């Protein structure tokens, strides 16, 4: 067993969804590890390896072929674009989602510096490929659990931009009526189960949602309940105890969950390499019997391919997968972070691998869309974001009575008042002061 775990073995080829899939060919075998061809080993020197894949000319040379699953793809002849990973519709959907994420976050920065937004705001610029690549494959009933860097996860899952913007402005029309804020985006309708401020806190919650999915199928006998949960978290979280506790239990109970690591190399000002004994996070999966995959998180198509396999595995009941996405945040940790510790050359290296530019190039070069069509999308998103700001701006602040609402689902939790009746039965209860 231990010999197999340390030997590097080429993975089985991933067939695209346009070919017939063998249901028995498991791509992610926990006993095999998947090699990575480039990993920035140092914050000072970046090893810029040349892409050596024969398919390289079909991709931008600034996108690194890290995941061999994509390189191994066999062409088929029953589609119009034999070597492509996406259809035009899928490509436009991904593009629109990433542009929405980017424009929204840029607008957040503007609004913050104008004083409309306040507190802690953590922006997602640069990481859009992970959100779009994963979340666009989900059904509405599937769940997403995120961290404080959750605006774009909520947007990708379908929460309207105006609801998220209002929430950030602290208005009553926000998705949580202004009570959650930037770090606590919840949406029951779209199954966004938060938005957690403590790193690692969302992982057990996501594991619990996956547990519910399995429980509903096996105990409550809802045979078609195959809902999957995605847990998003960062590199810093992978040193946290709760991460390992949940890898163990998810593997033990074979839960339908995908652990998505957004490794952007920095936890505020702490470099991943300074904080972690073994920085290769995907390796931590096989220690628990979970397949670990490393994928280039700046390439939405590669992310999508890895995501497809991991989500399908979970839906089939084969258990969890750990997917490490190598990505980067273009801005600081939060809008209050001066971002002085990161090297300019590192930032430039990743800026050249901007996922949006890469997808645009791919779509244009492969005749999936014209520049003009993409421009139309960009303009549409600009309007959506502007409208979201106007909506948020013109929305009212929460009323005084909202302070005491929703502390409990059963408000008798506020207890019995001096008159011997439950406080919440007094119709003027929520108009009072916070002293109950």
């Amino acid at each position: 067993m231990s010999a197999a775990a340390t030997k590097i073995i080429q993975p089985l080829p991933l067939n695209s969804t346009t070919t017939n899939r063998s249901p028995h060919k498991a791509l992610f075998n926990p006993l095999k590890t998947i090699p990575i061809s480039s990993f920035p080993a140092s914050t000072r020197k970046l090893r810029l390896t040349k892409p050596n894949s024969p398919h390289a000319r079909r991709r931008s040379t600034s996108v690194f072929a890290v995941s061999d699953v994509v390189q191994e793809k066999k062409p088929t002849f029953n589609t119009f674009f034999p070597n492509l990973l996406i259809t035009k519709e899928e490509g436009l959907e991904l593009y629109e989602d990433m542009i929405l994420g980017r424009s929204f976050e840029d607008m957040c920065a503007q609004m913050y510096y104008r004083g409309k937004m306040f507190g802690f705001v953590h922006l997602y610029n640069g990481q859009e490929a992970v959100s779009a690549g994963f979340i666009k494959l989900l059904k509405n009933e599937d769940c997403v659990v995120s961290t404080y860097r959750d605006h774009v996860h909520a947007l990708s899952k379908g929460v309207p931009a105006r609801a998220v913007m209002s929430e950030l402005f602290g208005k009553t029309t926000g998705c949580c009526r202004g009570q959650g804020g930037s770090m606590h985006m919840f949406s029951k309708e779209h199954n966004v189960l938060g938005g957690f401020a403590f790193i690692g806190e969302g992982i057990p919650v996501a594991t619990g949602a996956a547990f519910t999915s399995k429980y509903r199928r096996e105990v409550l006998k809802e045979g078609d309940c195959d809902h999957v949960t995605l847990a998003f978290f960062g590199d810093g979280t992978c040193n946290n105890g709760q991460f390992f506790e949940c890898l163990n239990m998810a593997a033990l109970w074979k839960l339908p969950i995908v652990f998505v690591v957004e490794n952007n190399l920095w936890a505020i000002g702490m470099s991943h390499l300074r904080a972690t004994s073994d920085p290769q996070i995907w390796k931590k999966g096989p220690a628990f019997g979970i397949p670990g995959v490393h994928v280039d998180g700046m390439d939405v198509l590669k992310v999508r391919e890895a995501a497809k396999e991991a989500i399908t595995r979970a839906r089939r009941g084969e258990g969890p997968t750990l997917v490490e996405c190598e990505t980067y945040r273009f801005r600081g940790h939060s809008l209050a972070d001066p971002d002085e510790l990161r090297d300019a050359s590192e930032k430039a290296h990743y800026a050249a691998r901007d996922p949006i530019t890469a997808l645009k190039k791919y779509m244009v070069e492969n005749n999936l869309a014209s520049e003009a069509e993409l421009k139309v999308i960009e303009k549409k998103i600009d309007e959506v974001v502007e409208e979201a700001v106007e909506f948020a701006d013109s929305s009212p602040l929460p009323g005084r009575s909202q302070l005491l609402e929703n502390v409990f689902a059963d408000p008798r939790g506020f207890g019995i008042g001096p008159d011997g009746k439950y406080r919440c039965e007094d119709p003027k209860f929520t108009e009072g002061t916070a002293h109950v």
Partner: protein
Amino acid sequence: MTVRDALNSALDEEMSADPKVFLMGEEVGEYQGAYKISKGLLEKYGPDRVLDTPITEAGFAGIGVGAAYYGLRPIVEFMTFNFSMQAIDHIINSAAKSNYMSAGQINVPIVFRGPNGAAAGVGAQHSQCYAAWFGACPGLKVLAPYSSEDARGLLKAAIRDPDPVVFLENELLYGESFPISAEALDSSFCLPIGKAKIEREGKDVTITAFSKMVGYALKASEILAKEGISAEVINLRSIRPLDTATINASVRKTNRLVTVEEGFPQHGVGAEICASVIEESFIYLDAPVERIAGADVPMPYAANLERMAVPQHSSFELGFCVVVPTKPNQC
């Protein structure tokens, strides 16, 4: 019926009534429960509904919360509430605060239960009472049963409640037997959350207590009765929300108050009751409120020191001397 059997029957009935209710914790299944509270449940409901977890409080408490977010009704057992400190982030931040942060979209119908407070000779890290800490948090309901009827009624209420409930049991009470009415044995029996019970009516002094201390208060009131002092004993049952209405009504009748708890004195349950009574019934008080609490030290191991660190009957008598100065030569 013993408290243990009362809790077991409540769990059994609620799990039978609603298939979404499940139990998870260390040793709840094959071991039949660390304190045998979940005896027989694994055989009856199977390993899918009675889950033995690995020793990872933060992990499994969080998993319980996530399951509650997405539609199930978990009961998470802590082997003792001291271990809940490893999971306290989930109890407070992901369970208690979620209904508020999500503006009512996501409620968390979870019960965290387990023994709380001192046992016998288990040392400092296994003996703390958590009523005050959890009682301070908005979004939580905190219950502390005393008798078997309390245990049954409050646990059933907690499981049916749509909000997170911290259910503080007591290891030394598990084996104690109490008379139980036919009404309490009915499967639909439920006690309201937020209402205290007047265990013994009196007119000279009000004693508030919860959990094991209710038994002490009742014993002390018998001793006091022989001296001609009639004590009213209130079993709080609910730490949060606190039934200040009942407490104040009682103090307005007796004009004197003694609060009893096993936990640390500073910022304790007694401190809150004292402040509340002073705010609402100041002019009715004939003497300052007396707090009887555990010693302000981590629990020592030596048996005699441990006895000194928790309220004893003698501390009651001292307390009453202060509050009821009708017979000064008692002290």
